[in-house]
């Protein structure tokens, strides 16, 4: 690991004021420390933001404000999250292990990097790690990489489960930084890779996430479902966060849907939502909604399985929510 200077930030403003080129913020470290050990991340300055007083979950009117330094396990165990945003609790519990959830923070979860095998291996080319070197994943092992929204430069997927649920919940990400404060509505924290896959998010140098704010829970019932290669402690092949509100007449009044494991960012399934709202509940409607979203998929040879998997997961989850 390359040498670095360590400093413990005392406030968000203190953290931001310590920013200079070569600085990275340290949360729980469950991804960043590993990337530093692998040589993928080489900060010269590490500003520890894990002990900032951003570690509470508080109601703000009908909304819920989650501090950036709240541990993943505390978020999932919080009574207001379990009671009002069960899909969020489920998504957090679907990720990582008990140990990692105890260490990892909310902002760190959002800003974790892709687990693309080439990104994590410094002996390989990777446009995300070293722009301009190429993307061996397109010809190589892309079995768990993107099927929508990717570019010729990068087919990485975003690994967070929590971010998928936050996307379906219209969560806001609150950011402070050298250029002032701003609010990004999910999935607007993230971007597609395009020609600059080195940027996972729209955050600029020195920007620091301070909180995630959830609007009032949407009406209806919700679920988070995750398909993976083993029953626990594995990243999603495909995942879904869905909320369905069905009227007494069997007509869908509202639907929110986001998909994980398919793209460089959580994928809000707006076309599927449009297809469903106003339609009567039926397997045919669910299949049409899945098709409306997935027709744009351009799978590579070794990840083509993700498209039918996502289709079936969408239909299965909606059917479950409708009954």
């Amino acid at each position, binding site marked *: *690991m390359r*040498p*670095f*200077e*360590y400093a*413990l930030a005392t406030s968000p403003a203190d953290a931001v004021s310590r920013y200079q080129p070569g600085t990275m913020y*340290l949360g*729980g*470290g*469950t991804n960043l*420390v*590993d990337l*530093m*050990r692998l040589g993928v991340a080489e900060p010269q300055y*590490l500003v*520890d933001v*894990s002990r900032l007083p951003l570690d509470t979950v508080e109601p703000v009117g009908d909304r819920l404000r989650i501090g950036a330094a709240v541990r993943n*396990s505390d978020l*999932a*165990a919080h009574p207001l999250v*379990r*009671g009002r945003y*069960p899909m969020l*609790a*489920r998504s957090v*519990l*679907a990720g*990582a*292990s*008990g*140990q*990692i959830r*105890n*260490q990892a923070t909310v902002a760190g979860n959002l800003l974790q990097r892709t687990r693309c095998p080439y990104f994590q291996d410094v002996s390989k080319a990777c446009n995300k790690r070293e722009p301009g070197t190429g993307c061996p994943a397109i010809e190589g092992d892309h079995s768990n990489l993107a099927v929508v929204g990717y570019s010729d430069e990068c087919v990485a997927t975003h690994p967070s489960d929590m971010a998928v649920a936050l996307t379906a919940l219209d969560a806001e990400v609150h950011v402070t930084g050298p250029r002032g404060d701003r609010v990004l509505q999910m999935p607007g924290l993230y971007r597609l890779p395009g020609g600059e896959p080195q940027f996972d998010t729209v955050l600029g140098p020195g920007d620091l996430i301070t909180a995630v704010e959830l609007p009032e829970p949407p009406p209806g019932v919700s679920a988070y479902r995750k398909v993976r290669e083993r*029953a*626990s*402690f594995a990243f999603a092949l495909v995942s879904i966060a869905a909320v369905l509100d069905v009227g007494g007449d069997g007509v869908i009044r509202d639907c929110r849907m986001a998909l994980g494991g398919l793209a460089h960012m959580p994928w809000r399934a707006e076309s599927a939502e449009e297809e469903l709202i106003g339609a009567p509940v039926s397997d045919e409607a669910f299949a049409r909604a899945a098709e409306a979203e997935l027709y744009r998929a351009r799978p590579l040879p070794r990840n083509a399985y993700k498209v039918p998997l996502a289709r079936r997961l969408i239909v299965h989850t909606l059917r479950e929510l409708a009954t």
Partner: protein
Amino acid sequence: MAEITLQVNGEQRTLSVDPRTSLLDLLRERLGLTGSKKGCDHGQCGACTVLIDGRRANSCLALAVAQDGRDITTVEGLADGERLHPLQVAFIEHDAFQCGYCTPGQLCSAAGMLGEAGPSYVTEDLLADPELTAEEIRERMSGNLCRCGAYANIVSAISAISAVGAVKP
């Protein structure tokens, strides 16, 4: 170098550390506490699990410099002198290991897990405090791998302890 103070198994230790040092390397190389094991060094196997302020954590992913002031319990700190921790007794009684390499991590992880509130991914009712069934234990212990495959007996050892009430380390 940075100076940090830790409580390790009840003893206060002040050390000067290179910021790159993991908590695991500090425990093993500087303090001679070799119970915590280095399996993968990537947070994937759980052999390095310790309790930080009573909560289980992968010590390989924790920078020692970031733990200043914290209370660390390793497998060496679970027993009360010659009296083994109930989980250690249960692991022996249930034959819950073969080579033993993952065992310190399994023990610390189980000790932390038994004190954790709330549901897991397999809990049906998110609002209820679930009973620790075998399915719950398997899900909650999924961060600890055992390459000998002693899982069946690890689950039964932990079940035996959880049946008599949560045990705090």
